[in-house]
């Protein structure tokens, strides 16, 4: 849900960074499901761990530059057809978030695990930092979490 101007997202995996513990379990789960990880966790300034993966942009620039039509977008979801991929690397260069990589198997980007009910990374995350839902539901969940946090700090006498 890191939405940027002109890039609104449909159903997505949202990362609640305040809960991410940098255990890299999501990367391992992704690698196990797909052969290579498509989510990248890194610790910033030794204090915050931030996972980065495909944002499923509504106006997906990776799809726009894919001239053989290997990447295509239908109803918001982006699919990849390895038979059409030429390995040109343009999608990698066209991703604003650096979330696309290319290897011998083709394009590596989060496909939201179409064969699973819930993406592998989300199922695995031990701290429930990854949320999988419609964008509106995610927003509701985030508000709920913020409210709980606020309640807790008030109860413990901390000043917000």
């Amino acid at each position, binding site marked *: 849900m*890191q939405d*940027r*101007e*002109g*890039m609104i997202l449909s159903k997505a995996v949202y990362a609640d*960074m*305040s809960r991410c513990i940098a255990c890299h379990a999501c990367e391992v789960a992704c690698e196990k499901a797909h052969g290579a990880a498509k989510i*990248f966790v*890194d610790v*910033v*300034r030794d*204090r*915050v761990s*931030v996972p*980065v993966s495909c944002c499923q942009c509504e*106006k997906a*620039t990776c799809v*726009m*530059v894919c*001239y*053989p039509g290997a990447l295509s977008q239908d109803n918001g979801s982006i699919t990849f057809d390895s038979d059409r991929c*030429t*390995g*040109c*690397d*343009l999608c*990698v*260069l*066209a*991703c*604003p*978030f*650096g*979330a*696309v*990589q*290319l290897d011998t198997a083709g394009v590596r980007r989060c496909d939201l695990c179409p064969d699973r009910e819930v993406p592998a990374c989300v199922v695995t995350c031990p701290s429930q930092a990854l949320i999988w839902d419609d964008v509106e539901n995610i927003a509701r969940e985030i508000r709920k979490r913020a409210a709980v*946090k606020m309640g807790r*700090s008030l109860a413990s006498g*901390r000043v*917000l």
Partner: protein
Amino acid sequence: MKKRLLAVDEKTCIGCRACSAVCPVDLIRLSDEDGVRRIDFPGICDEDCQECARACPEEAIDLVFGEVQPEFVLSFDLVPCQRCGAPFVTYGEMDRLGKTIPQELQTDAFGASWITLCPRCRRSVERERAAKTLLVSRRGTRV
């Protein structure tokens, strides 16, 4: 004796990885070194295959019959990343991206251009931004 030759139009070739990636017999070789991309093309190709010509985004490759020609090399200067300085994209690729991606999507919500950053730096910038938000909200809950 006439042979099947690889004719590449230097002016239209943007130096992407397509032809080298699809060649089933590895006759086209690509390497990035010292800020320059080098693509080695074979002079002749006897394979019954059109993959490189078909894969080329600029239709710069033709397979023609003619007198035997030697192998040849096309070189492309790589554009350095504006954040870390690492060369990562050819000018031709950059130009094609600039033409294909609508202008309004070439900058982020803060008006900064992401297209001139290498993919690794794009991830870092995204992380830095996200981290800043979280650190600010954490400061509020400190005792």
